[in-house]
């Protein structure tokens, strides 16, 4: 069979809360829904290691806000070098501000001051604030104790890592997004023979997708075994 060249296109996926693999994080999803409908906490801080889905949840929350006609902004502090603290000016007028990777602003005084000032401006408004960090406010190496205590005043929730059932669900969910049929036994095979890190699992499905398209083959255990052996 001739090998088909896949187009150099990747599926751009806008994260939604609905396609987050919840695992043992039902309480987090509940808190996010309740924050949006006004029955829950207005200030939420999500903690978890990278690849725990923090960014997905923050962007998903922004999408959910938009679907309700609310105005939101997603601020990825991992890119703070390309941004400027002044970008936070005026955001308090929105309904939701989602600030991702707060640890990237820690020990950076201008960013900490801008976050602190934004927080204060939001206090007497209805603005919902959703933060994420690789650790909780108490453990962040912040220069401003004032910022730390404010971040700690809201609802802090730790994302629990996916168990194996959750990882299988993640593989299936990403495959489905690529319209890729990933039989259960093949998904289990992948899970027992590769990195169990959620980010790596997503990469593997993307590799499988490209290979399946190029080779025009269904995902079977022999095909996947060869592919994983190629590294």
């Amino acid at each position: 069979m001739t090998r088909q060249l896949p187009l150099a296109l990747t599926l751009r996926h806008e994260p939604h809360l609905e396609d987050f693999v919840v695992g043992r994080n039902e309480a987090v999803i509940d808190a996010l829904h309740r924050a949006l409908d006004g029955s829950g906490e207005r200030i939420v801080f999500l903690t978890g290691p990278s690849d725990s889905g923090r960014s997905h949840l923050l962007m998903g929350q922004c999408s959910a806000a938009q679907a309700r006609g609310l105005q939101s902004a997603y601020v990825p502090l991992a890119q703070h070098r390309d941004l400027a603290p002044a970008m936070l000016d005026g955001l308090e007028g929105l309904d939701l501000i989602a600030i991702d990777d707060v640890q990237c602003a820690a020990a950076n005084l201008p960013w900490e001051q801008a976050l602190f000032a934004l927080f204060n401006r939001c206090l007497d408004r209805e603005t919902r604030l959703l933060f994420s960090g690789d650790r909780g406010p108490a453990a962040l190496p912040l220069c401003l104790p004032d910022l730390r205590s404010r971040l700690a005043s809201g609802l802090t929730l730790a994302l629990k890592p996916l168990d194996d059932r959750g990882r299988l669900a993640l593989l299936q969910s990403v495959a489905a997004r690529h319209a890729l049929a990933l039989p259960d036994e093949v998904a289990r095979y992948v899970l027992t023979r590769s990195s169990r890190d959620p980010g790596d699992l997503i990469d593997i499905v993307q590799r499988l997708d490209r290979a399946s398209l190029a080779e025009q083959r269904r995902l079977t255990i022999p095909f996947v075994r060869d592919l994983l052996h190629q590294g």
Partner: protein
Amino acid sequence: MAPNAFVLDWVKKHYLEQMRGYVIDLGQDGALKISLEIGSAPRSAAAAASASPAPGSTLDAEKRAGRLPSLATKPTTNPDFTFGSFVEGKSNQLARAASMQIGDNPGRVYNPLFIYGGVGLGKTHLMHAVGNRILRSNPSAQVLYMHSEGFVAEMVKALQHGTIDNFKRKMRSVNALLIDDVQFFAGKERSQEEFFHTFNALFESQQQIILTSDRFPKEVDGLEDRLKSRFGWGLTVAVEPPDLETRVAILNSKAQQLFDLELPNEVAFFIGKRVRSNVRELEGALRRIVANAHFTGRPITIEFAKEALRDMIAAQDKLVTIDNIQRTVAEYYKIRTSDLLSARRSRTIARPRQVAMTLAKELTNHSLPEIGEAFGGRDHTTVLYATRKIAELRDSDHRVKEDYNNLLRTLSN
């Protein structure tokens, strides 16, 4: 529409060319134009055409200017922060009493009132409570609450827009000016200059000024001396970290106010013992427990609270060990850790050792014999004596009290 100049520039830089390309592709012969400006789309339109979650979005027209609402129409104090909702304890009773007197008699008793203390201990609450009390007895009073950053931002905006005279007039025409966290004026000379004149004008006309800071006026770095000295003209009061009983009372009060919930006493004591740093963190812990209880439908018990706060407690336990306390105390007093463990009994060593033993008793679950053992094999009665001595000195010696609170704060964070 962009919410601020940064986002406007960012969109121009990253997307304008692409947008022009799309417009050309649409082939409308110049009928479509791209216009980028700072402002907001009307809310209804925004719902249909809201931007993707990118840095920035549109703003509500009323809100975008970020300016303070007209004093005449909208109070700037938070109505939830009253003396009724403020939990009094030994740590804040003087500040509360002074604030109440000012609320009843603004501009006459203590002017300015300067409240200082660590973060999250209720300084802002007291300030708002004074403002609300003034407004209660005189609804037409002009009470202006501002964070110092807000003062700076508004002044800069006024300078840019050529409206500095309006800004000055507004600041100098109030009956009570409440400025939070004045330490953030540090290094901002133009703002300090303007605030100095505002202060003088209000002081001379006997209008009330209330200021808060994280430290004693003379110790705020980066502030002009003339401001520091004026800040000390009236009454300066400290707000200390709350003791266990006050923390429990605060938790019960917050549970009632925020969630209409009767918190079991043993749970309140459990949280109060584990979260010692400040009121905001107490509130955060309470929120976490209540959210978990709401979601799982389980009753709030000590076991449940332990589970909900597990990672918070684990992080704290990791930090607060006797070793860590000894290192932190030695560093604070600029002595060696080995001095704390030695037999030396000079005051410069014995006092820090007593402070460290007291902190070890307060912050860890070690028994007194274990603590004594960790301090060079001392008897548990020595630890007991140390804790009693420090408790006594904290009441009588300002410096010991300050040192102890600083160390407690460092170790609790």
